[in-house]
C-alpha cells in the first residue's frame, strides 16, 4: 500500500519534473559557445566587393537564413539566385526561412550552426559581435558606399549591411481621410487627434488600429522617438543618461500620451485583445481602418491588398519640432552578416555584397536602398512633397556601445517589447486601476535606476 503510493507520487513527480524541465530547457538547453570563438576577428581589414578573387573562382555552397517566409520561394529562389549565379556560377545558395526569426536564431547562435549568411538578431551586444560574425570591413570604408553600416559595429569594424532602410511613421488610408474631410496631413498630436475624431464621426472606419494582441506592432511606436526628438543624438546620448525619459514634453511622453489619448477616447478598435495582424492588412486596404503606426516596410504589404495601391499613404509621426520641421527617423532594417564559423566565407561574402548592391530587394519591398545616393522609393515620395526631413540615430561612442540595450534590459522597461504599451492601452480603456501618470512614473523610476547602474552616474 505504502509502496504503491510512493510509486504513484514518484511517477507524477517525474512527470511534472520532465514537463517543467522541458519548459526550462527551452530557455536554457544551450550552453554558451566555447570561449575560443574569436579566432578570426582580427583580419578585419579587407573591405568591399567580394574580395580579390574573380567571381568564377569562388565556389561553395552557402545557406542563407531569412525572415521572409512569404517570399523566400517566389523572390529569393526564383529571381535572386539565377541572377546571382550569372555572376557567381559556382556558388550554390540554399535558403532557410524562419518564422520566429529572432527567437530561433538567438538560440541557434549558441552553436556553430546558424547558416553561412544571416541577419543579426536584435540585442546582440556590440562587444559580442566578433564572436559570432565575420568582419565585413571598417565602418569608414563601407560607409562611403552603404547606409547604416555603423548600426552593427564594434571598434570601427562593421559586421552587417542593412537589407533595406526604413523610415518611421504612420500608414493610412487616403480615401478614409478624404471621406472624413481631412485634407492636410496632421503635423501635431492635436491635429492627429482631430483627424481621428473626424474619422470616427464621419466614417465607419476604425480611426486607429493598435494591433494590441499581436504585441509587436505596438513596438513600432518606439521607432518614432528620434522623429519627435528631432535630434540624432537623442537615443545614444540623451536617453541613456536621462533618468526620467517619460516626463512631460519628452519624446517618449509625446508618443505614448498620443497612444493613451486615442485609446481613452475610444478612437481605437472596440476590443483590442482580439485584434489580428493578418486581417488588419486587408482592413486598412478596404478602408475599414484609417491609420496604423508602422515602419515604412509595411506600406507594400498593405498595398498588396488594396484595389488601388495609391489609397495607402504614409505620413510621418505628427510632431512639429521647435525648428518647424517634421522629422521621420530612418534606420537600417536587419543587417545581413556572415557566420564566423562558416566554411565558405568567400562565397558568403559574395552573396552579402551582391544582395546589397544588385538584388534590388530594398526598392522592390518599398524601402530605401542601403546604397548611398539612390532615389527615394515610390512609397515615400509623399515625404518629399510634405517636406519631411529624414533623421537617423547617431551611434553611441565606443565606450558606451551597448548601454541602451543594457539599460533597457536591466530596467525591464522594454522599449521594443509590448509590455508597457499594452499596459497603457489597458489603462486607457479602463481595464486597470492606474492612470497614465502612474505608468510613466513607474517607467521613469525603473529606467532611472538602471541608468545609474549601467552608466555609474
Amino acid at each position, binding site marked *: 500500500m505504502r509502496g504503491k*503510493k510512493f510509486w*504513484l*507520487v514518484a511517477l*507524477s*513527480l*517525474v*512527470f*511534472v*519534473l*520532465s*514537463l*517543467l*524541465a*522541458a*519548459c*526550462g*530547457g527551452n*530557455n*536554457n*538547453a*544551450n*550552453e*554558451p*559557445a566555447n*570561449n575560443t*570563438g574569436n579566432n578570426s576577428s582580427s583580419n578585419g581589414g579587407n573591405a568591399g566587393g567580394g574580395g580579390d578573387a574573380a567571381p568564377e573562382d569562388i565556389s561553395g555552397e552557402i545557406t542563407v537564413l531569412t525572415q521572409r517566409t512569404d517570399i523566400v520561394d517566389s523572390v529569393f529562389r526564383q529571381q535572386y539566385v539565377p541572377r546571382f549565379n550569372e555572376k557567381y556560377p559556382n556558388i550554390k545558395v540554399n535558403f532557410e526561412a524562419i518564422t520566429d526569426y529572432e*527567437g530561433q536564431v*538567438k*538560440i541557434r*547562435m*549558441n552553436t556553430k550552426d546558424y547558416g553561412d549568411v544571416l541577419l543579426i538578431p536584435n*540585442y*546582440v*551586444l556590440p562587444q*559580442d559581435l566578433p*564572436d559570432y560574425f565575420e568582419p565585413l570591413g571598417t565602418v569608414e570604408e563601407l560607409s562611403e558606399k552603404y547606409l547604416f553600416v555603423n548600426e552593427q559595429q564594434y571598434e570601427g569594424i562593421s559586421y552587417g549591411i542593412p537589407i533595406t532602410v526604413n523610415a518611421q511613421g504612420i500608414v493610412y488610408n487616403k480615401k478614409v481621410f478624404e471621406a472624413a474631410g481631412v485634407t492636410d496631413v496632421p503635423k501635431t498630436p492635436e491635429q492627429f487627434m482631430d483627424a481621428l475624431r473626424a474619422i470616427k464621426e464621419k466614417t465607419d472606419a476604425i480611426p486607429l488600429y493598435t494591433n*494590441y*494582441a499581436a*504585441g509587436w506592432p505596438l513596438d513600432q511606436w518606439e521607432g518614432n522617438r528620434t522623429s519627435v526628438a528631432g535630434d540624432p543624438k537623442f537615443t545614444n546620448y540623451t536617453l541613456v543618461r536621462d533618468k526620467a525619459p517619460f516626463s512631460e514634453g519628452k519624446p517618449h511622453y509625446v508618443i505614448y500620451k498620443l497612444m493613451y489619448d486615442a485609446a481613452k477616447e475610444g478612437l481605437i478598435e*472596440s*476590443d*483590442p*485583445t*482580439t485584434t*489580428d495582424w493578418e486581417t488588419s492588412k486587408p482592413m486598412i486596404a478596404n478602408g475599414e481602418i484609417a491609420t496604423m503606426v508602422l515602419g515604412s516596410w509595411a506600406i507594400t504589404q498593405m498595398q498588396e491588398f488594396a484595389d488601388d495601391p495609391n489609397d495607402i499613404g504614409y505620413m510621418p509621426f505628427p510632431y512639429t519640432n521647435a525648428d518647424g520641421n517634421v522629422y521621420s527617423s530612418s534606420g537600417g532594417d536587419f543587417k545581413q552578416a556572415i557566420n564566423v564559423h562558416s566554411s565558405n566565407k568567400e562565397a558568403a561574402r559574395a552573396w552579402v555584397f551582391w544582395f546589397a548592391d544588385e538584388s534590388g530587394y530594398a526598392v522592390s519591398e518599398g524601402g530605401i536602398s542601403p546604397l548611398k545616393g539612390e532615389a527615394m522609393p515610390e512609397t515615400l515620395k509623399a515625404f518629399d512633397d510634405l517636406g519631411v526631413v529624414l533623421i537617423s540615430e547617431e551611434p553611441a561612442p565606443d565606450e558606451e556601445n551597448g548601454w541602451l*540595450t543594457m539599460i*533597457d*534590459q536591466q530596467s*525591464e522597461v*522594454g522599449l521594443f*517589447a*509590448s*509590455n508597457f504599451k*499594452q499596459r497603457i492601452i*489597458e489603462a486607457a*480603456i479602463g*481595464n*486597470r486601476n492606474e492612470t497614465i501618470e502612474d505608468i510613466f512614473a513607474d517607467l521613469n523610476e525603473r529606467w532611472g535606476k538602471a541608468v545609474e547602474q549601467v552608466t555609474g552616474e
Partner: protein
Amino acid sequence: MTNQPGGGGSRFALSFSSLSYKAQRRVIIVLFSLIPLALLVTFSYLPLYRMVYYSFFSWNGFSKNLTFVGFDNYVTIFTRPEYFGVFKVSLYYFFATFVQMAIALYFATILSFRVRGKNFFKGVLFFPYLLNGVAIAFIFMYFFRPDGTLDALLRLFGLGEYIQLWLGNPDIINISLAGTSVWRYMGFNFIIFLGVISSIPSDIYEAADIDGANRWHQFRYIIVPSIRRIIELNVILSISGAIAVFEIPYIMTGGANGSSTFVIQTVDTAFKFGKFGLGSAMAVVLLIIVILVTLIQNKLFKEKGA
C-alpha cells in the same frame, strides 16, 4: 519474461540462454531501461541541471560573458512582489480544474455504460486534446472576438444582452481562457477515467443490479471507490498544471490584460528582457512550488485514505 529471448539460432542467443534465469532477467531489464533512461537524462535532468546552474548567473542568453551572482537572482524574485501577484491568475485555472474533472468523470461514466454512438462520442470528446495548442488558441480567438462565434451563438438563442468583451474585460478574460483550457484538456482526463472505469469487472455491476442499485448508486459506491487513485493522480497533475499554465494564455493574449501567469513572466524575463539567469531562477522557484504543492497534497490524501 520467462520465455527464452531470441529463441536460439545466433551465437549470442545461445550464449545468452546459457546464462542463469536471474542473470538473463537482469540483462534484459538493464537493456530495456537504457533507452528511456538515456532520453530522460538527456532531455530532463541535463537541462534541469543547466537551469539550476544558470540561475546563479547573470546571463543574456547567448553572450559569452556569464557573471556569477550567487543567490542574487533569487533575492530579486522574492523582493519583487509583482512576481507573485500573478499566482492569483492561477486560481482561475485551479477552479477550472475541478469543473474539468467533473465533466470528464461525468462523460466517462455515461460512456462506460451501454450508449448508442459510444465510439463516436468518445472520439468527439477526446479530439480537442489531439489538436495543436496554437490551432486551439486561434479557434478561440475567433470564438471570443466581438461579433465572433460565441456572440453569434448567443444572439441566435436570444441571449444577445449577455454579450461581453470576452477577452477585453479584465474580470472575464481569465474565465474565458480557463474555459478554453477546460475544453482542451478535458479529453485527456476523460480518456484516463474511461480506461479505469472499463477495467471494473462487469459482474460487480450485475450484482449491484440484482441488489437493486440504480445508476447513481453504482457510480457512488462502485465507480468512485475503484478509481479513487486515478482521481487523485488527475488532481495532482491538474493542480500542477494550473500553477504552471502557459500555452493558451501566451498564444491568445501574450499575458496582456491581466492574464499573465508565472510561466509567461518567466519567459518574458528570459526572452524579452534577456535575463536568462533570472528566468532560470524563476523556473527553479516554480519547480520548488510545484513539488511542495504535490507533497502537501499527497499528505492530505494519505490521511484521508487511511
